[in-house]
């Protein structure tokens, strides 16, 4: 099964959710009026797209309806699709030009950081890149062991210290190792942390300082991992992590459930952080570059 099929399958529930309801609404309305828009608004909000973004989408559609003198409710679907595509568009490939380049994976607890790293390592390895992993989640029990297993699966090197050690020190060692071995990409795992914990965010700053100092000018991808089941709090996560470091992209995980993942649309639209990678399963290959056209197509089929 190709990735597109997987994404489609993963989004099946989403599609059923959004499109079926939209179709129903559009058919049931004879004309375009306020009530129709209110229904649409509700549907978008319940896909975790969020109030602000939903309002923006609705306003845009309203403007277009007026401008083009559209009277047929079923034409709204095309407009909505256009709108969503426009909102999620962006550069999704990872920028890894220097040797070494650095990818830092951050996010709250339980979103799937370590698993995503395993998959990204595999992805890059298959592209013929030499990858080094840094096990800088020294806090969670057995996080290092977990990454080690992924490193073995992807057949890449892992730099680790013992549990409870300073994550910045792990990063430092990993950078030296990556330099010495002329690795193409260094991927850094970090401990999950709620963005509201000030001291943990400070710890993260230290990690970034080390990278800035030791690898000035290196290509950097600071990727925030978001769980597709997350609701509006993802915005707060993206905002707060964005204050600590320049986020270069989002990794959206667990899209194979019934979660609608609409929150990425909100994150992209409100904070302009592009979605770069999407995870749709537990397998090693179930992570791919985000494609806005495919994403919206899969939603609407």
């Amino acid at each position, binding site marked *: 099964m190709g990735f597109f099929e997987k994404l489609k399958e993963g989004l099946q*529930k989403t599609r059923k959710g959004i499109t079926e309801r939209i179709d129903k609404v559009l058919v049931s309305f004879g004309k375009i009026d306020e009530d129709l828009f209110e229904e649409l608004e*509700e549907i978008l*909000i*319940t*896909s*975790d797209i*969020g*109030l602000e973004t939903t309002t923006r989408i609705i306003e845009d559609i309203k403007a277009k309806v007026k401008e083009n003198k559209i009277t047929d409710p079923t034409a709204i679907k095309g407009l909505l699709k256009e709108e969503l595509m426009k909102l999620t568009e962006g550069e999704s490939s990872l920028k890894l030009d220097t040797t070494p380049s650095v990818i830092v994976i951050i996010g*709250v*607890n*339980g*979103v*799937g950081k370590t698993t995503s790293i395993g998959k990204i390592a595999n992805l890059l390895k298959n592209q013929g890149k030499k990858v080094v992993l840094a096990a800088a989640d020294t*806090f*969670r*029990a*057995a*996080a290092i*062991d*977990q990454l*080690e*297993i*992924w490193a073995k699966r992807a057949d890449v090197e892992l730099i680790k210290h013992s*549990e409870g050690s300073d994550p910045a020190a792990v990063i430092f060692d990993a950078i030296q190792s990556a330099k010495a071995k002329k690795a193409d990409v260094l991927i850094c795992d970090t401990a999950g942390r*709620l*963005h*509201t*914990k000030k001291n943990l965010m400070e710890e993260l700053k230290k990690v970034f300082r080390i990278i800035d100092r030791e690898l000035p000018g290196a290509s950097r991808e600071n990727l925030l991992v978001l*769980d597709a*089941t*997350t*609701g*509006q*709090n*993802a915005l*707060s996560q993206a905002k707060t992590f964005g204050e600590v470091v320049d986020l270069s992209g989002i990794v959206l995980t*667990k899209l*194979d*459930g*019934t*979660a*609608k993942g609409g*929150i990425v649309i909100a994150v992209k639209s409100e904070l302009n952080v592009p979605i770069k990678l999407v995870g749709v399963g*537990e397998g090693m290959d179930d992570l791919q570059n985000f494609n806005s056209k495919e994403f919206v197509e899969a939603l609407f089929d």
Partner: protein
Amino acid sequence: MVFEGLAGKLQDTIKRLRGQGRVTEKDVKEMMREIKLALLEADVNFKVVKDFINKVSERAVGKDVMESLTPGQQVIKIVHEELIELMGKTQSKVSFASNPPTIYMMVGLQGSGKTTTSGKLANLLRKQGKNPLLVACDVYRPAAIKQLQVVGEQLNIPVFAMDDKTDPVVIAKNAVDYAKKKLHDLIIIDTAGRLHINEELMEELANIKKTVKPHEILLVVDSMTGQDAVNVAESFNEKLGVDGIVLTKLDGDTRGGAALSVKAVTGKPIKFAGMGEKLSELEPFYPDRMASRILGMGDVLSLIEKAQEAFDEKKAIELEKKIRSMQFTLEDYLDQIQQLKKMGPLNQVLGMLPGFDKKALQGVELDEKQMVHVEAIIKSMTKRERINPSIIDASRKRRIAAGSGTTIQDINKLLKGFEEMKKMFKSVSEMSKKGGKGLGKFKMPF
């Protein structure tokens, strides 16, 4: 703070309505829209919101509200009451088997926090006299078994594990036999995270259930979950029959609407709330308090309880006497700091006070490190110095600074602050002699 601002928004709506004489049905409708949007923004499921709004507006268009002089507050009161109603009126506890061992099975999506919660729950119930055994049934996620073992080690609670090639049903069964032999009266089974639509893995849970007949199945739900929370809770409940819910990661800034959603669709009580990364940070879930927090009314009850836990009543009376007679010394001050520390992170404590919203608190630097410094400084003083700080001269200051790893400036700051506090105490106790009340603007010198 969860749903902060809803109360404020309603007040705004009311303000706009002022001067119209009375509240009309249309006004109520507008208020309902505010409530609806606030709840949706808080990730409460839209079906749940709809039902909720219907209930509230039915009551709100009633005579009491329309004719009330404070319709806004009336509406808030109704919302508050209905929220409590929706979340379950009373706190629910876990139950124990009459014929031990009691078996709990932890289930949920990936990353919701099952393993950590298993450890926390074992720790909490051990304090209540149980002898728990943790069982590692997550054979899928790399190093999940190891994670539970490390948690068990940290807590000094035994963990039953087999290798990751073994069928989880077999592991669970063997664990029960083992527990009986070793006289464990409580078994907590940690299962692998799975999607509720994964038939095969859901079947596995059903088989574990059939084999070990758990006393309670606890669904672990991430409080940051969005609209999907209903689907998850519904499926797990349908396929397994859930007995209770544990809400995790409530220490973040999530509005936690998922709590309302899962309770409403399953009808099952939320029994615990995970409040932090430490293995001690699992608390009973109090629906009424959560409702107050949702409305930004502060969680006064929790705070009072925390304070009671931490403060020694005798010491408090003694302290009051000392303050009145102006014998408050640095020694007493040290005592105070230590008691304050027992209450938990200051941010958390203040967050529970009404009128404090968490966002505002984020700006305020509550530097707990400074508290540690103050403690170190006082501890580096001799007993005489603590009782009579006026004897602290330059040479003593140098010694204290060296001993506490601080600077002389730090010590000066502390002494100055302490003097100011004493002065304030003095004026306060004089005031209260004259019949004044309260400590007024009480400022600690750190």
